[in-house]
């Protein structure tokens, strides 16, 4: 419903946005003019590109760091495993607002300030706890015997992981990746604090749209939603078709 309303505002033009009650059916004079106008605003395309860049990097970092950590949590018994689990969650306990200033200073020193890489690192910090915990429970759901069978039938531990565990965990890992992507795509605060000229789409819109008319804002919002919704739908289909959710 909210998505429908936003879409309506985006394609309906000025009159529909300001009318009340909202028409239930889309009005006849649908026009993508507003969206086109919006896309013509200087910098939208380049900031969208930064957004994608940051989100993809964030996704990659979250998976590369989160999946091994999750595997370790699921399979190995080590001192402080429970504490570690808690600490992973605790990273989310600090408000970004408090971290923003020291982060900005630190990033300027490292030369990461105002780069998509810097933003993606920040977003990774936000997405990683979920990546770790979700993949831990993924691996826990895969019976240990499968891995042991692989070892017995000639696999080294690494090969067993690649041949048996990873294919089984892949749907879940893909979901985790999407999740990281969406977190990064939607995040505004850190992105606007950490960048000046190379703003991600959300941060850019925040600064530009506050000065634009309502229907352009709707158009911006709509454009913003499309990728994440599309992404989720695409992957969901893949998730279900992968050999069924219930494969045991």
């Amino acid at each position, binding site marked *: 419903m909210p998505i429908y309303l936003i879409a309506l505002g985006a394609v309906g033009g000025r009159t529909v946005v300001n009318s009340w009650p909202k028409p239930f059916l889309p009005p006849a004079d649908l026009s993508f003019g507003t969206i086109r106008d919006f896309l013509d605003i200087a910098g939208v395309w380049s900031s969208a590109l930064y957004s994608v860049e940051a989100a993809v990097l964030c996704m990659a970092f979250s998976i590369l760091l989160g999946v091994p950590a999750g595997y370790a949590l699921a399979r190995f018994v080590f001192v402080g495993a429970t504490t570690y689990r808690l600490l992973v969650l605790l990273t989310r306990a600090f408000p970004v607002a408090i971290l923003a200033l020291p982060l900005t200073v630190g990033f300027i020193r490292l030369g990461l300030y105002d780069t998509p890489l810097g933003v993606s690192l920040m977003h990774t910090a936000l997405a990683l706890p979920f990546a770790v915990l979700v993949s831990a429970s993924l691996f826990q759901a895969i019976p240990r015997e499968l891995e042991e069978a692989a*070892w017995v039938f000639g696999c080294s531990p690494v090969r067993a992981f690649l041949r*048996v565990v990873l294919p089984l965990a892949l749907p879940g890992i893909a979901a985790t990746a999407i999740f990281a992507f969406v977190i990064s795509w939607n995040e505004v605060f850190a992105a606007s604090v950490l960048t000046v000229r190379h703003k991600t789409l959300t941060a850019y819109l925040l600064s530009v749209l506050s000065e634009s008319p309502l229907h352009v804002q709707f158009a911006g919002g709509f454009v913003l939603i499309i990728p994440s919704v599309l992404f989720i739908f695409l992957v969901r289909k893949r998730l279900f078709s992968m050999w069924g959710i219930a494969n045991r």
Partner: protein
Amino acid sequence: MADIVIDNVTKSFGSFIALARVDLHVADGEFLALLGPSGCGKTTLLRIIAGLETQSSGHVQIGRRDVSALPPRKRGLAMVFQNYAVFPHMTVRQNVGFGLRMAGADAVRIERQVARAAALLHIEPNLDRYPAQLSGGQRQRVAVARALAIEPAVLLMDEPLSNLDALLRLEMRAELKSVLRQAGTTTIYVTHDQTEAMGLADRIAVLHAGRIQQVGPPAEVYARPATTFVGGFVGSPPMNFLTLPVENGCVRLGALTLMSPMGFESQIVLGIRPEDLEPAEAAEGFPFTLRVAEPLGSHIMLTGETVGQHLRVVVPPETQVNIGATMHLRPRRDRVVWMDPASGAAIRRREAEKLGTEAAGD
């Protein structure tokens, strides 16, 4: 040649001792069943042989090669897991060929071996299906075929039939026996089901609380249990044990006088299988008060008491029985075993016989 030597293997988890100085030798081509109640350490022992668990001390040799420190893939063995552990994301064909592919065998050989293993276990029609589309019994066959396809020198099986229903289990048991006899593989088979162990194995090793109680052919373990535990665990119904007073080297049981082994002055345990007791006249038997009679078709199982102790008897189906009545029984003398009441260990038969004849000569 792949015999298995387990030399003084101990495994402890913290202060809990799962296996205590286990020694075992499995000959090439032999089928050995590791039998014991749950928690006795039989699965731990199997996993140590497989290399999935590391022993706290001791050595494992397979085919004269010390494999104690080798990872599972270098031990030259195959394993069938309790829950099958067939890979859900591979077809049956890929599952069965998995070991060969990992070993880098060429496609022709894989194809041939897979076909052979599949034929042996009658799963050819399912080769291109996924495990999720198969029943439990079929998955079990896939797991066995996967193990046999690599032509292992040693095959380890961890309660492979325990997840099947009773009828299927009976069918698979017979089939396994013939398949493995054909393959001539050295096999260690873990089970808690004594009929399975009796039916399948060349030899049975009975494990209790991390120690091997007895190793021997099924008939011997059944007839001559080494401890009261073995007698009680192997055989259904279990062996009867009567703790009886000893007087002048003899045990009196009703009208019977049995010569007991020397060295036991106050008490001794008499062990007798339920089917080794037969109805007798009062003058040549001991009294038995019948409490429950269960007609089981092929025989009647009687439960009751004698000299205040619990006793089970198996009699032919045509026997006349009256609940609550006292009947008289006689043990088949050559089937009686004597146990030490303190340790529960059997008093060796030859010794007992010799001592018995000496006592008779007095």
